[in-house]
């Protein structure tokens, strides 16, 4: 390369870095600004009890045993209560894929951190409601 070639390389690198200083940063202002999440995002689940049949396929599909099923707790004809343990869930999406009755979906809510470990276990009430936007998901309204 030689001395002059190295000098040329050094100045080219300095040029790249100098240009970078005046570019707009890539990162987001996180708490006030968030990236857009596509509809396919595998975030926390939403359980539609109106269409659930209590077939327990989601429970069998779960590789980490994060779903607890309670078949006694019926609100409608033949549904069941699901409890999601988000300390275990790995968001693989198999429960949603295994559901044939359109009763279990992922939502794009991914920031589900809590101060208390117990709060991450979403009981039957919490898993069927959404507490923030979007309150509507695939035609169902949750509140």
């Amino acid at each position, binding site marked *: 390369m030689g001395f002059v070639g190295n000098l040329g390389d050094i100045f080219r690198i300095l040029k790249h870095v100098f240009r970078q200083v005046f570019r707009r940063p890539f990162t987001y202002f996180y708490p006030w600004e968030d990236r857009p999440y596509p509809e396919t995002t595998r975030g926390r689940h939403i359980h539609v009890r109106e269409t659930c049949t209590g077939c*327990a396929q989601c*429970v*069998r599909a*779960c590789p980490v*045993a994060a*779903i*607890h*099923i*309670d*078949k006694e707790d019926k609100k409608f004809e033949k549904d069941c209560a699901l409890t999601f343990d988000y300390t275990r869930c790995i968001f693989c999406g198999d429960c949603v894929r295994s559901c044939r009755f359109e009763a279990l979906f992922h939502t794009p809510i991914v920031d589900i951190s809590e101060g208390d470990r117990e709060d991450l276990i979403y009981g039957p009430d919490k898993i069927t409601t959404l507490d923030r936007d979007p309150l509507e998901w695939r035609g169902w309204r949750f509140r």
Partner: protein
Amino acid sequence: MSDTPGSASTVARAVINKYPKIESKPLDGNKVELVVPIEKIRDVVAMLDEEISDALPESMFGVDLTENKYELIYIFWSHLGKMLIQLRVQLEGETPEIESVADIFPGLEWHERETHELFGIGFKNHPDLRPLLLPEELEGQFPLRKSFKTDRSRMDETGLPKPKPRPAPRGESS
């Protein structure tokens, strides 16, 4: 199976010619399996090293067949011949022992260490048989043996009925 020079069956035939006790079994493609008796393993591996100029020690691991029966499987891959040689060694006993081949293929040294701690298979003349992955309190426990029981209590929490018992190994009905 093709018989072109450099194919897996040629190597297998060469090995069998030298050590007639060894059985060979073709797998799909240019792959062959050799069932090697326990005392011949060093000779066969050394011969593979000579025969195949670019043998890559791809993998080596144990299989627990229960009732103190174990299998060791050595897998060698050659890029030039595009062939895969799989050696199978059948072991028996509480803590079976076999000759180490770590000096012929240094890449197998850690595989042997791992098999030693996870299955309790001894490797004679191995340079360094400290536990590789396990913490000290699990030494002598051999976690990958079928007799090592893991905690299955999590499945009870799902509310499902208990899963059916695992299918029994070959030749066994329980």
